[in-house]
């Protein structure tokens, strides 16, 4: 895969429009989905994807492939997300404290996390679950949402995520753990509220 990217980059540097198209084809859906998961809106996702490709192709001639093309594109996309937040004057990130995510009584609390199996009969719960996860992800402060999306959704390693976001591997681990606990609590609260009183 990286060899193929290397070949596409080399061809793009020689002015090949086909190589540009192949790069776009390979990464557009990934970047669009990342933008949507980060911002929650289709228009913002389109802006982030477009800005990522425009900035990438403007600098691709100087790209020395010290990192994978995919990781480099996600670094540009993450920066585009930060810029969009600043433009929108979104609220500053709040810290998620581990103590607030912890049950002081111990780990014995019961959580209602539904099982979204691939059984077609589970379509309704799958649709609802998808919406609940999307909404809960939007409530995550952006610094945690970025790490969660890169690690758990896009599948980057801890080291790759740290490199993309220019933070330490320990920060990646800390933010990921808090993001997961936050999502677990939010998803569980949603399905708990839905249950009729016994």
């Amino acid at each position, binding site marked *: 895969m990286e060899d193929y990217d290397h070949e596409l980059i080399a061809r793009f540097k020689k002015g090949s*429009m086909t190589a*540009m*198209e192949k790069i*776009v084809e390979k990464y*557009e*859906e*990934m970047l*669009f*989905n990342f933008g*949507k998961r980060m911002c929650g809106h*289709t228009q913002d996702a*389109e802006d982030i*994807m*477009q800005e990522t*490709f*425009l900035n990438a*192709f*403007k600098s*691709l*001639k100087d790209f020395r492939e010290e990192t994978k093309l995919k990781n480099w594109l996600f670094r540009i996309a993450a920066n585009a997300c930060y810029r969009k937040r600043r433009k929108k004057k979104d609220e500053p990130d709040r810290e998620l404290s*581990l103590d607030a995510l*912890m*049950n*002081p*009584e*111990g*780990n*014995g*609390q*019961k*959580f209602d*996390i*539904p*099982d*979204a199996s691939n059984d077609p009969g589970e379509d309704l719960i799958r649709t609802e*679950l*998808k919406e609940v*996860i999307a909404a809960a992800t939007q409530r995550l402060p952006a610094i945690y949402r970025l790490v*969660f999306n890169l690690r*758990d*959704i896009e599948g980057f390693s*801890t080291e790759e995520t740290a490199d993309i976001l220019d933070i330490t591997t320990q920060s990646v*681990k800390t933010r*990921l*753990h808090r993001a*997961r*606990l936050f*999502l*677990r609590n939010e*998803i*569980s609260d949603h399905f708990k509220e839905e249950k009729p009183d016994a």
Partner: protein
Amino acid sequence: MHEECRVLFEKMSEYLDGELDADLCGKIMSHLEACPDCLNCFKSLKNTVDICKRFPREKMPKEIHARLRTTLEDCMRKGTF
């Protein structure tokens, strides 16, 4: 919260991701076998991660696909890249 439970709570994601050294990993494994509350907490976290990973990517609308091409081809023609 019991100290061992607290350590597990803090390291649960790293344990799940296989990022802990063998010694700590072994201690956590033994604790999970002995502590049903922590096992329940761990399973709920693992289940959350599993369901979040399970949903496929959304298809990109065709008009967005087309607009991106128009923009990029214009830039290429104008020599922006």
